[in-house]
């Protein structure tokens, strides 16, 4: 039925399976959209945020998806600027994942602010001293870059590509992609950093506050660094999940191993920096503000010392070491485990830098306040996941995302032109989209 749209030389599941998958993800999406409209029309009283938790699940989700979407800019940087050409085999997917992450972040922000219709004031009345202004500018610019990076991929659709204008356009866009990739990397450096700065500049919140280098607190650099380190891990993880669901290899091991190695060394160096930062903060910065480390960690499971250990050791040092050792990372299972740990690690880091900042009482007579999200917050946070699944499903089905797919999975020679045959192919076809797990 839709075989005319499916890229040449690859097999896709029957349309009913595809539709079923879309339907399930769509239902989740609708649930999220319903919650989103509740928040817009009834206001943020629909959430469990309060005056102590001005930032909560959403801001964490924002920071997390942007860190995880960091794979796009860093892979682009490696390929186009540092000439790691091998990565061309995964760059498309990295861009797509980045696009999903960043569009999700923007959507969540649009729900999170109290007066979304005024959000353009951030540009109109911009305060150049605010990290958030920097974030807003770089984020929107980079989102445009990602869109530009994603467009040629869309244009490569079999039918669109037949239009000469489109064909030429996509070709010439590819020519300039290095420029966009470099711009993207530049913008990402700033907004990833600024997101780190969001917490790091809070000199009223000793838990978040870090010393400065130039105008930026240490978290600025740590966030950029960690996004570059952990973003590719997320790309690898999602690729792995996609392969599992598609039941075929989509990217060659050489590409995967290269990216994993680079990510591993990035994580390794990052975690050393993070440890140094933590020690300096715990022994110098915080005490100079009148706080001792133990005041920052209460004895409840959410904000206890264990969270620090899990972030830095279990989900920091451990996956970094795993990826650095060639023997370990060449084992697919261990590689996947390492990427899972890494993704948890960076998400946990963002969680701590948002939620624990809010939770730690600063005035001595203030109290620890607990927070758990309302269903509306959860639904609107899952919304982007459903949206990502749908976008991946559609993109995978109709766009040549994985250049090596056809080579890795050659079609049987007697297979005629796909057009009339999809129903037969379907039986042995692979993808089972409804099993797609949440990936954000």
């Amino acid at each position, binding site marked *: 039925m839709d075989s005319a749209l499916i890229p040449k030389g690859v097999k896709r599941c029957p349309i009913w399976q595809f539709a079923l998958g879309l339907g399930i993800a769509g239902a989740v999406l609708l649930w999220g959209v319903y919650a989103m409209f509740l928040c817009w029309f009834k206001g943020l009283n629909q959430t469990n945020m309060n005056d102590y938790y001005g930032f909560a699940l959403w801001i964490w989700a924002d920071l997390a998806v942007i860190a995880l979407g960091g794979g796009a800019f860093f892979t682009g940087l490696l390929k186009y600027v540092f000439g790691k050409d091998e990565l061309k085999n995964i760059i498309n997917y990295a861009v797509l994942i980045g696009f999903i992450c960043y569009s999700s972040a923007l959507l969540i922000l649009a729900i999170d602010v109290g007066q979304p219709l005024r959000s353009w004031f*951030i540009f109109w009345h911009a305060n150049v001293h605010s990290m958030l202004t920097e974030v807003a500018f770089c984020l929107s610019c980079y989102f445009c870059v990602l869109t530009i990076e994603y467009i040629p991929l869309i244009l490569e659709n079999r039918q669109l590509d037949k239009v000469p204008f489109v064909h030429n356009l996509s070709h010439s866009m590819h020519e300039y992609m290095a420029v966009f990739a470099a711009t993207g990397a530049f913008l990402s450096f700033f907004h990833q950093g600024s997101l780190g700065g969001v917490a790091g500049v809070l000199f009223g919140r000793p838990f978040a506050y870090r010393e400065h280098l130039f105008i930026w607190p240490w978290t600025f650099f740590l966030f950029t660094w960690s996004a570059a380190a952990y973003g590719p891990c997320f790309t690898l993880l999602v690729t792995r999940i996609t392969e599992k669901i598609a039941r075929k290899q989509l990217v060659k091991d050489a590409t995967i191993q290269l990216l994993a190695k680079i990510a591993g060394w990035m994580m390794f160096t990052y975690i050393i920096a993070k440890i140094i930062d933590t020690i300096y903060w715990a022994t110098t910065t915080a005490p100079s503000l009148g706080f001792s480390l133990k005041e920052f960690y209460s004895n409840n499971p959410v904000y206890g010392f264990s969270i620090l250990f899990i972030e830095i050791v279990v989900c920091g040092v451990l996956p970094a070491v795993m990826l650095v050792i060639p023997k370990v990372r060449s084992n697919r299972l261990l590689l996947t485990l390492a990427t899972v740990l890494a993704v948890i690690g960076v998400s946990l880091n963002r969680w701590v830098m948002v939620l624990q900042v809010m939770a730690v009482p600063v005035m001595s007579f203030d109290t620890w306040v607990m927070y758990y999200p309302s269903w509306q917050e959860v639904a609107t946070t899952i919304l982007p996941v459903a949206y990502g699944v749908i976008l991946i499903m559609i993109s995978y089905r109709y766009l040549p995302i994985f250049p090596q797919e056809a080579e890795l999975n050659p079609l049987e020679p007697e297979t005629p032109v796909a057009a009339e045959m999809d129903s037969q192919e379907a039986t042995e076809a692979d993808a089972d989209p409804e099993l797609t797990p949440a990936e954000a």
Partner: protein
Amino acid sequence: MKHTGNIGKPKRYGMVIDLDKCTGCGTCMVACMAENNVPFKKDESNKLDSITWLRVYRLTNGKPYPDNEVCYLPRPCQHCAGKHEGHSPCVSVCPATATDYDQETGIVSQIYTRCFGCRYCMAACPYHARYFNWWDPVWPKGMEKALNPNVSARMRGIVEKCSFCFHRYQKAMEKAHMEGRRELEEDEYQTACTQACPAGAITFGDLNNPEHKVHQIAQPDPAKGGRPRNPKVFRLLEELETNPKVYYLSSREWVQEACHKPHLLDQKTAHH
């Protein structure tokens, strides 16, 4: 009246709150809410979403019966100046310049029509002085008559906070200008809470003006970011260098300790 104090120079309006005198009656909170059109809901018992620009905290020394002691501490916006005038924790982070540090008065303002509700300022404020309008305010039928025309009613989705009754400053200045004066007398500009407090526990005025009572009580040290020289006077979280303009006075040692974290130089660690 002859001025020797602070003519033509920027003012630094601030407060000294005498915690020995404060009885925790809450009249300041009521006066503030009435003056500033602060809304109220049917259930205000969840203090995490209850807008009280001025909140009276209850401090205890944590000791068991019968050695338990209690002190009340009213906490308006501290109108921080930061390390350098205007580098308040909140003003520096607001992306839309919806909160501003007035160099003339030292007052941190909030522009309700510009705030788009990102709440970054709330995350930045260690005093919890900022409140978000989680709900659209509703006044019971008839009660909207009591709204003060000098302060606009806020709407859902934005942040609000104590303004040191800035509209009163504007009114007083208007009046002074009409009378051909450029300077205000000390009693011409007073906040609603200061005026209402039956204990006279709040003193308000120009910290830069040696003639004003706030200056005389707090004795701020300009060389040390306004640190009080009066040993009974202190500020909340002095070490953070937020440089607040609200000073507290207490003769009880445990209150002084509970209110600011021990400084590194004091070689103290745990407390209360």
